[in-house]
């Protein structure tokens, strides 16, 4: 298929898509006129039922927590998939150091200093996000990704060896499993107590919006933070490691 033909087929398909989209648009309530009712109901009952003032987190970790288990395991499987796809082939050997592998010049002093200065605050920020899902716009997913950036900063500072030292693959995999398993275990604990899976069985705390409130929402968010951070460190590590590989015959 020539590129020109491909483009014409695409334009024909896109025209059809646009027509259907406009048709669908005609039936939507206008922007800014959210009709409800689900969002309104949740907004009204969530704070009273869970003591969490962050209703998005309440939805994610309480009302549809079972979906979030699946979502978390999507990430878990993706990290495993990246490891499998990027496994060492028989024809590949590893270079001794990253410096030998990358032709780019080493990181400048400015990059190094900024990375070093930012690492600490970013770790604190990530944990703060992961532990405040119940109060404000944050949660385990966001916190976990921010925690990963701290590890990436260390790599950016040119310290691949340090990257490997602070995130050895075996340990990271174990941490990831603890995060993923912790979420599932919170759910099973409820079953052991004779409640439905993922029922919020912990005390809800006295004040809505307190850090120690909302029962399992805070706990699940914490485990999700661990899982997400470990999964992304694994993925980034696998991709970075590829620059260390040489195929037989090439160079």
């Amino acid at each position, binding site marked *: 298929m020539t590129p020109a033909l491909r483009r014409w087929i695409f334009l024909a398909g896109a025209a059809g898509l646009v027509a259907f989209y406009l048709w669908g*648009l005609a039936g939507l309530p206008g922007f800014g006129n*959210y009709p409800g009712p689900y969002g309104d109901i949740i907004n009204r009952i969530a704070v009273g039922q869970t003591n969490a003032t962050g209703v998005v987190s309440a939805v994610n970790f309480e009302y549809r927590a079972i979906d979030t288990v699946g979502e978390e395991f999507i990430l878990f499987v993706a990290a495993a998939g990246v490891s499998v796809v990027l496994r060492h082939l028989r024809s590949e050997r590893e270079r001794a150091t990253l410096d030998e592998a990358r032709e780019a010049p080493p990181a400048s002093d400015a990059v190094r200093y900024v990375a070093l200065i930012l690492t600490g605050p970013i770790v604190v920020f990530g944990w703060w996000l992961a532990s405040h899902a119940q109060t*404000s716009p944050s949660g385990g997913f966001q916190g976990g990704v921010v925690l990963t950036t701290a590890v990436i900063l260390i790599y950016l500072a040119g310290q691949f060896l340090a990257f490997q030292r602070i995130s050895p693959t075996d340990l990271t995999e174990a941490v990831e499993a603890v995060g993923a398993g912790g979420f599932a275990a919170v759910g099973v604990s409820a079953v052991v107590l004779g409640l439905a899976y993922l029922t919020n069985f912990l005390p809800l705390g006295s004040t809505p*919006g307190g850090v120690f409130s909302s029962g399992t929402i805070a706990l699940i968010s914490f485990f999700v933070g661990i899982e997400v951070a470990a999964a992304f460190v694994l993925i980034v590590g696998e991709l970075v490691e590829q620059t260390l590989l040489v195929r037989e015959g090439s160079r």
Partner: protein
Amino acid sequence: MQVFPFVVVAWILAVGLYGIVTSRHLVHQIVCLIIVQSSTYVLLLGVGYRTGAVAPYFFDVPERTPAVDPVVQALALTDVVVEAAVTALLLAFAVQAHKRFGTLDPQELVQLKG
């Protein structure tokens, strides 16, 4: 204008699809897929929006304050996570394709396959 955000959704979707169809580089193609997916964030948040309403966080506002729909926001979060997972896997496949065939041009890859 009442439909403007939804027109933006269609525009982002179309631009991303066009990029995927005409792309000459796998990494570029993956970025285009991310753009296609970004249109769903705008759609989700646009559907749940209510003029003058606050974010669904009642930490410092009374509980009865009109707020936007938290359900679509939670869905957008799921969307982001899935996108990150898909992107990671696709990038891994791109690395392997380059190792195997020595090129990242999707059209050349098709020819190599015969």
